[in-house]
């Protein structure tokens, strides 16, 4: 799965049974924190849930939203990927 610049600046978290390393996990709970609504919408379109080995439950939140509900603590998630900011989500260099 190649997402390219649309994923720049995002933070990927696993939670649920896969994050707890259960050998009998039946699905993958993935939360991606995004820099903007546009980026969240683009990632929803770009990520193919059928490309994963197990059924995917995908949550996309802005960093601001996640902070207001303390989503990472609430879901006891683990960061598995942190992508550096790069191009903005329209394809121009970020300022």
């Amino acid at each position, binding site marked *: 799965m190649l997402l390219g610049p649309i994923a720049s600046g995002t933070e990927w978290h696993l939670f649920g049974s896969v994050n707890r390393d259960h050998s009998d996990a*039946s699905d993958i709970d993935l939360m991606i924190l995004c820099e903007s609504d546009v980026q969240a919408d683009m990632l929803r379109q770009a990520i193919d849930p059928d490309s994963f080995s197990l059924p995917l*439950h995908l949550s*996309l*939140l802005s960093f*601001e939203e996640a902070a207001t509900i303390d989503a990472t603590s609430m*879901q006891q998630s683990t960061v598995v990927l942190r992508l550096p900011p790069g191009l903005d989500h329209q394809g121009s260099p970020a300022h």
Partner: protein
Amino acid sequence: MGSVTDWVAKKLATNGQQLEVVDRTPEDFLVIRAKEDYTFLVAVLSVQDIVQVSHVQPLFVGTRKPQLVVNVPSKALWSGAAIDFVHSVQSAFGTMGDIARAAETRAAGLFRDRNMRFFINAMEQHENVSTVSYVYDSVFRVDRRCGSSLTVAVIDAYNMSAEDVRNARTRVGHFDIVVKASSYGSITEQAESAAESMAAQALTFRGLMQRLAR
């Protein structure tokens, strides 16, 4: 390049969920063997947008009928009419991930999504609700005894975000209420605002029950 049925068979062989594809019928149904030798038939569709009755009816014309019909991609919707048809012939519908869940029931034709079954039962038992019908697999028309009918979209989310609400609108079109399936977690302020901007409401299960009364 193999068919989508080949693709599902290959995925089942590699995902370690103790399911085995033991045969393929002349209709191209997969014969799945689960734990304790429970065996059932799965038909695989590859409808890209909305599964309609016309897609599923041909699967049931022969003597062998599938207990479960799955569609790839899982993002595709199932129309209410297609769901009603599948249920009327004692079969079940779902995504590839539902094959393992259906196997666990040991009566795959009776498999129903746990979250949707919960919401349907709860709405049907509400004193102000007369009927609940599928619009899509996670969207329901709720006819009320007092008050107008409501379209309710259920989101499989622990925390409901603004993106969940926007994605629901993009996928299913109009709804009056978007409700999160989990009774835990939160609805963000941004999700509530996104719903309001669509003249809809983002609610928890409890909020939905209260809204159905008004």
